[in-house]
C-alpha cells in the first residue's frame, strides 16, 4: 500500500522532544502538538501505532518521553489506544457520509482512500460534518487511490458532499414573485440558496446512490430475517455505474433532501444566475432553441421550490 505524504496539511512540525516541564502556555502547546502528530499518524496495515516515529526513532522511545506507563500498559500502548480511537472515529464518519463512493470502490479500496485522504487533510473544523469538504479535491490530486474509476469516484464524492450541504446548509430568505415583480429583467440579479448545489457530472450519481440505499435497506432486512443465504445476496446487486452525463440539483424542500435532474439549458441558466448574471443574460446562457414558455415553466418551478434568494452583499472595493 503506498504511503501518503508525511506531513498532514495545516499541522505545524512536531517538536524534536517532549517538554519535560510545563511552565507556560507555549510548553502546553508544544506537548499538544507532539501528541496530535502521534494521533494523526496513519495506522499500520493491521491497525497499530507505527513502530517508528517521523525522525526514525523507535516510537516506544518517543512515547516514553511524555506518557507514563502502568503495570498493564506501556507508554506506547497507551498512546496507541488514542491513535486507534482517532482513526476509527473519523473513518466511521467518512463511511457514513459516502455510501455511494464506498459501494463503487468496494470496502478495501474505499478504506485505503479514506485513510490516505485523512492523513493528508486532517479535520480543520470543530465538527466532523465538514470532514469530507476536501475529499473531491483529494481525489483529483491523487487519482491513484481511485484509478481507473477516478472520474466516477469524483462524481460521487461531489454528490455526497452536496448532500451534506443540502441537509443543514444555510437557507436565506426566499424571493417571491412579488419581490421581483417590478424589477427589470435586464438588471435583475438573483441569488441561489447556499444549500443548493448544481452538479454537471459524467455519471448518474443520483440513481446509483438510491440503488445503494435500497440495497443497504434490503441487507438490513435480510440480516434481521431468520433465513437468508447467498441467493438473497445476488438480488442485492447494484446496477453497474456506467458513464452517462447528467445535470442534477441537490437541494432540500421542507427540510427533506431531494435530487432534481435538470435539462442542460435549464442547468446553464441556473449556473448563470448563480454566477451573478442578470436574468436576461441567464436566459441567453440557456441557448437557442429554448422557448419562452420553457423558461417560464422552469422559473416557476424553481421559485416554488424556494431556490431564489437575494444575492449576498458584495465585499466593498471589489476592483482592488
Amino acid at each position: 500500500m503506498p504511503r501518503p505524504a508525511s506531513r498532514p496539511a495545516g499541522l505545524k512540525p512536531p517538536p524534536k522532544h517532549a517538554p519535560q516541564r510545563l511552565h507556560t502556555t507555549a510548553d502546553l502547546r508544544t506537548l499538544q502538538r507532539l501528541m496530535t502528530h502521534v494521533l494523526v499518524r496513519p495506522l499500520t496495515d493491521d491497525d497499530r501505532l507505527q513502530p517508528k516515529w517521523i525522525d526514525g526513532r523507535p516510537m516506544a522511545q518517543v512515547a516514553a518521553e511524555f506518557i507514563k506507563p502502568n503495570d498493564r500498559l506501556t507508554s506506547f500502548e497507551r498512546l496507541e489506544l488514542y491513535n486507534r480511537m482517532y482513526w476509527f472515529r473519523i473513518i466511521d464518519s467518512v463511511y457514513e457520509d459516502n455510501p455511494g463512493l464506498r459501494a463503487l470502490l468496494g470496502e478495501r479500496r474505499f478504506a485505503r482512500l479514506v485513510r490516505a485522504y485523512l492523513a493528508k487533510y486532517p479535520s480543520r473544523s470543530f465538527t466532523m460534518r465538514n470532514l469530507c469538504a476536501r475529499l473531491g479535491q483529494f481525489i483529483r490530486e491523487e487519482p491513484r487511490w481511485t484509478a481507473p474509476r477516478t472520474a466516477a469516484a469524483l462524481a460521487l464524492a461531489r454528490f455526497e458532499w452536496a448532500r451534506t450541504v443540502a441537509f443543514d446548509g444555510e437557507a436565506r430568505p426566499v424571493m417571491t414573485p412579488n419581490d421581483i415583480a417590478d424589477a427589470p429583467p435586464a438588471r435583475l440579479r438573483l441569488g441561489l440558496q447556499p444549500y443548493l448545489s448544481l452538479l454537471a457530472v459524467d455519471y448518474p450519481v443520483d440513481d446509483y446512490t438510491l440503488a445503494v440505499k435500497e440495497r443497504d435497506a434490503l441487507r438490513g432486512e435480510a440480516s434481521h430475517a431468520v433465513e437468508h443465504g447467498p441467493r438473497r445476496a445476488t438480488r442485492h446487486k447494484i446496477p453497474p455505474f456506467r458513464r452517462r452525463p447528467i445535470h442534477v440539483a441537490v437541494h432540500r424542500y421542507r427540510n427533506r433532501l431531494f435530487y432534481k435532474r435538470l435539462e442542460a439549458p435549464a442547468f446553464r441558466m441556473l449556473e448563470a444566475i448563480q454566477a451573478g448574471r442578470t436574468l436576461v443574460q441567464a436566459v441567453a446562457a440557456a441557448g437557442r432553441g429554448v422557448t419562452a414558455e420553457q423558461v417560464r415553466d422552469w422559473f416557476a418551478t424553481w421559485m416554488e421550490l424556494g431556490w431564489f434568494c437575494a444575492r449576498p452583499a458584495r465585499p466593498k472595493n471589489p476592483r482592488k
Partner: protein
Amino acid sequence: MPANRFNGHTDYGIGLGLRVPHYAHILEKKPVVDWFEIISENFMVDGGRPLEVLDQILEQYQVVQHGVSMYFGSADKPDRAHLKKLKTLVRRTKTPWLSDHLCWGSVDGTFTHDLLPMPYTFAAAKRTAEKIRQVRDYLEVPICVENVSSYAEFHASEMTEWEFLGEVVERADCGILLDVNNIYVSSKNHDFNPYDYLNHVPHDRVGQIHVAGHTKFEKYILDTHDHPVLDPVWKLYAHATKRCGVTATLLEWDDRIPSFDEVHDEALKANAYIGGARAAKKRAAVTAS
C-alpha cells in the same frame, strides 16, 4: 448541588441525552421527561432538519446544552466564529447553563474530535481557567466543566486529576459537571480510589451529574456509552449525591442505542440511589423551619 449559580439556579431532575434514533418517538409520543441534554455541535448548523427538530423539542421540553469541541484545555485561543455560532444556539435554547469538557483536542486549528486528557500542571490549569472565563463572559451563561475518562497520563503532571479539577474551577469560578462513570473508568485505568476523587472535589460547585455505561477490556476500561450503567458506578453516584445533594442528573447512551423507553427506564434507576440524599435534604428542611 440541587440549585446553584452554576446551573442557573434550576432544580432539574433526571434527564436524557437527545439522540437521533429517538427523534420520531419523542415528537410523536411526547413522553414525560424532566429535561433533555443536547450536543451543541449537532445544532451549530446554518439550517435544515436539525434546527426544525430542535425547535419542536424546545416547545415541549427543558433543554441543556452540552458541548464536545470547546477544548478549554487546548493551548489555542477560543475561535471567534465557533463562539459566535455557539452563542446563537445559546440564545435559541435559552440553556440555563452550558457544559463542556475539561480536556483538549485541537492544536493549531487541527481537530482530533477526541476528548484528550490534560497534563495536570499549574500552568495548564491557569490557561484553562482563563479560557473558561473568556468563553463564559462571551456567552453570558454559567459554565460547568466535565471530567473526562482517560487512558493515559503525562510525566509532566504535578498533581492528581481531582486536584487539577479543583484548581481549574476555583480559578475560573465555574461549576462542575461531575461524570461519575468517567471517575470510575479513570480510577481503574490509573489505579486510584474513586471515592478519594469524589470526596475531594468542591461539592458546592457541582451543577450537574452524568452517569453512563462503560466496557471492560483485559488491561483497561473504555468509556463507551453503549451499555446500562454498571453497579459500581451507581454506588459512586449514590455517594456523590450524598456529598453534593440531589443534583440534575443525565444518562448518556450514545452507541447501540436501544428504544427510548429502555433508555428512559435506565435513567430513572437513579431515583433508587438518591434516597439517602433526599432524606438528608428533608432533615435539613425540617431543622431550618
